[in-house]
């Protein structure tokens, strides 16, 4: 069945990752929450997804669409978003298998409008087709690029992704617009404060499962404030009533057949790099949310996610709509509610597809006050930046890693904070050089690559000092920092080596100083303690009760023997694999740790 293997290599099948539930989550990707929970969570994701459609409304209006045509343009977009969301929640070769909601994000909208205005909608469709191809190629090759995405680079990516959401969230929460000096809108601030207060209040102090409904409660509170402050009134509701209750999409907006225009393809090619970086960030975020013991980016999963986005782009090109990306706001919502079950993603997608036929409901949700989304954006930004910091600090840092993380963050932040830096960048390169996310992440990747030069994956040290235990711990910490090993693993290895040296000393089998050899790859840390003398026999731990151990106190020899057994048990407990052997009058103890 060679073709089968080739197919598997080309499009790797779905594989479920091993997970441990974080304390602050209620349901993980593979869990099956009750239908009531699934439905209430899905409705909240639908509300957020529809509120984000406001960007697409503005994009449609900029393209000169109005009335039934604009409605159709939105409905077709919703069909693609719904399809993508369902796909993300399935367990196929094109799916992450996570609760991830698609959206027509700012990057894709900006490129789409620019291309439609300069070269027409057909050129945009052609560009989106190339974009789809790029995503499928990137999805295939991403898993091979593990070396480019160590934990600290992923952390920089999340911090910058969160940082990028801050201005968007703050503008929506305060009613301020970019580039203007209008004063704060007090009613917007009030709505956002009530929503954000409710969400954080429920997330922090919620008794039991009220947080599952955090957004609905927050949005209801925000909506009440909006009605009270007059932000939402008769005029807005009249616009909703003007929409038909039911409409089949595709009747009025006719997608243009794709044409190939280089001026349209180049921005999409460059945009795909930013989109891929952004998708890796979303993938890392949802993966970390699902796993207390997150260790490294699950690149095969993120590769499948990119494949899925590639399929969605094909649909976007065919329907003449804006390409989609993964919505970070919905990621924040998943964390607020504590539900990350993929089943909720599938239901959200199906609801979005159904709502594409019901324009009145869509119009109403789009009109919900922007400060509500602003509040969730602020929550998401805060959560993302802290998660990024956690990823960075999960590894031991040394001068090179500090430089990688620090300069990456400075480069990214500089683009956000010093607008004149990118003011002269040609429009075509804006998706890359004008994005703090891309500049910062690429800077961190480059430094990571440079600083890997000259770092040997093996280290050796002779433990001949006054305190061999302390010497071993120091050696492991220094090498661990060179390799960027996880703090927890190096700490455990230090304890195990200390315990082993103590056991060797107590057993009296060591006739001279030991040599500690450490070898590391991203998945295992192997230690070898090599010394002149005989092998240490680590007996398996017999059942032992504390009283019996205390009684042994009278008989010193038996007590020593019991303690040696205890040492052996501790070493076996700390390390994942232990082996002892003797060769040419040298004893060897091998300890292996999963990383």
């Amino acid at each position, binding site marked *: 069945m060679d073709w089968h293997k080739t197919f598997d290599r080309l499009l790797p099948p779905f594989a479920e990752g091993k997970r441990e539930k974080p304390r602050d989550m209620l349901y993980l990707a593979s869990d099956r929450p009750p239908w009531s929970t699934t439905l209430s969570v899905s409705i909240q994701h639908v509300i957020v997804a529809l509120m984000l459609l406001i960007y697409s409304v503005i994009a449609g209006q900029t393209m000169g669409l109005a009335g039934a045509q604009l409605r159709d343009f939105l409905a077709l977009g919703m069909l693609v978003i719904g399809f993508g969301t369902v796909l993300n929640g399935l367990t196929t070769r094109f799916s992450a298998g996570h609760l991830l909601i698609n959206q027509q994000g700012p990057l894709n909208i900006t490129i789409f409008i620019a291309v439609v205005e300069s070269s027409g909608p057909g050129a945009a469709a052609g560009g989106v087709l190339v974009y789809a191809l790029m995503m499928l190629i990137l999805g295939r090759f991403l898993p091979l690029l593990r070396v480019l995405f160590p934990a600290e680079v992923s952390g920089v990516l999340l911090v910058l992704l969160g940082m990028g959401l801050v201005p968007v969230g703050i503008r929506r929460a305060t009613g301020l617009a970019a580039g203007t000096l209008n004063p704060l809108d007090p009613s917007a601030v009030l709505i956002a404060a009530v929503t954000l207060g409710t969400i954080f209040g429920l997330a922090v102090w919620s008794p039991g499962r009220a947080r599952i409904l955090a957004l609905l409660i927050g949005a209801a509170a925000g909506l009440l404030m909006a009605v009270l402050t007059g932000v939402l009134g008769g005029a807005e509701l009249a616009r909703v009533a003007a929409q038909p209750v039911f409409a089949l999409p595709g009747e009025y907006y006719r997608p243009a057949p794709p044409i190939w225009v280089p001026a349209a393809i180049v921005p999409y090619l460059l945009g795909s790099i930013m989109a891929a970086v952004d998708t890796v960030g979303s993938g890392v975020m949802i993966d970390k949310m699902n796993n207390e013991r997150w260790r490294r980016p699950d690149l095969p999963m993120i590769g499948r996610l990119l494949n899925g986005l590639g399929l969605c782009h094909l649909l976007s090109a065919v329907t003449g709509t804006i390409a989609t990306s993964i919505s970070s706001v919905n990621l924040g919502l998943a964390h607020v509610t504590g539900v990350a079950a993929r089943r909720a993603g599938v239901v959200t997608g199906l609801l979005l597809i159904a709502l594409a036929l019901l324009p009145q409901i869509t119009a109403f949700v789009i009109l919900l006050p922007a400060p509500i989304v602003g509040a969730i954006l602020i929550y998401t930004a805060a959560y993302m930046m802290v998660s990024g910091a956690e990823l960075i600090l999960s590894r031991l840092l040394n001068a090179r890693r500090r430089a990688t993380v620090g300069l990456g963050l400075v480069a990214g*932040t500089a683009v956000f*904070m010093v607008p*004149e830096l990118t003011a002269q960048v040609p429009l075509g390169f804006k998706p890359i050089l004008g994005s703090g996310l891309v500049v910062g992440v690429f800077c961190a990747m480059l430094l990571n690559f440079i600083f890997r030069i000259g770092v040997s994956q093996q280290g050796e040290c002779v433990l001949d000092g006054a305190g061999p235990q302390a010497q071993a711990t120091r050696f492991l910490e220094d090498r661990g920092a060179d390799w960027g090993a996880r703090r927890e693993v190096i700490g455990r290895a230090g304890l195990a080596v200390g315990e082993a040296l103590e056991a060797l000393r107590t057993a009296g089998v060591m006739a001279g100083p030991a040599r500690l050899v450490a070898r590391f790859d991203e998945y295992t840390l192997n230690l070898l303690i090599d010394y002149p003398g005989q092998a240490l026999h680590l007996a398996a731990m017999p059942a032992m009760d504390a009283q019996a151990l205390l009684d042994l106190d009278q008989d010193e020899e038996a007590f020593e023997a019991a303690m040696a057994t205890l040492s052996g048990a501790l070493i076996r407990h700390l390390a994942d694999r232990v082996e002892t052997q003797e060769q040419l009058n040298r004893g060897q103890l091998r300890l292996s740790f999963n990383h």
Partner: protein
Amino acid sequence: MRAVFPAEVIGTIITMVGIEVIPFGVRRFCGVDVSHPTLDLMALPVAVITLVVMMSLTVWGKGKLRLYSALIGMIAGYVAAVDSGFLGPAQFSSQTLPKLPAPSA
């Protein structure tokens, strides 16, 4: 005040202090400001040389070299600035030599 400043609050303060200096540093690094948004091709190489020397010594330097990485970086920057003409006699001649403050009567 210990209750007011737990480690995470101090951490946030230090992060914000770091973030706050980024615009100042980056504007001087690239020689841009609001009125001159074009990268200053005289300033940039000097800044890059200073940073690379400093960083390389911190990462790969041993002992004393590492200890004085900032100082050596600055000296390298000065040499680069004079060599490239970014810093010339004009800048020096306009400065007077330091004087002790004259005691006022």
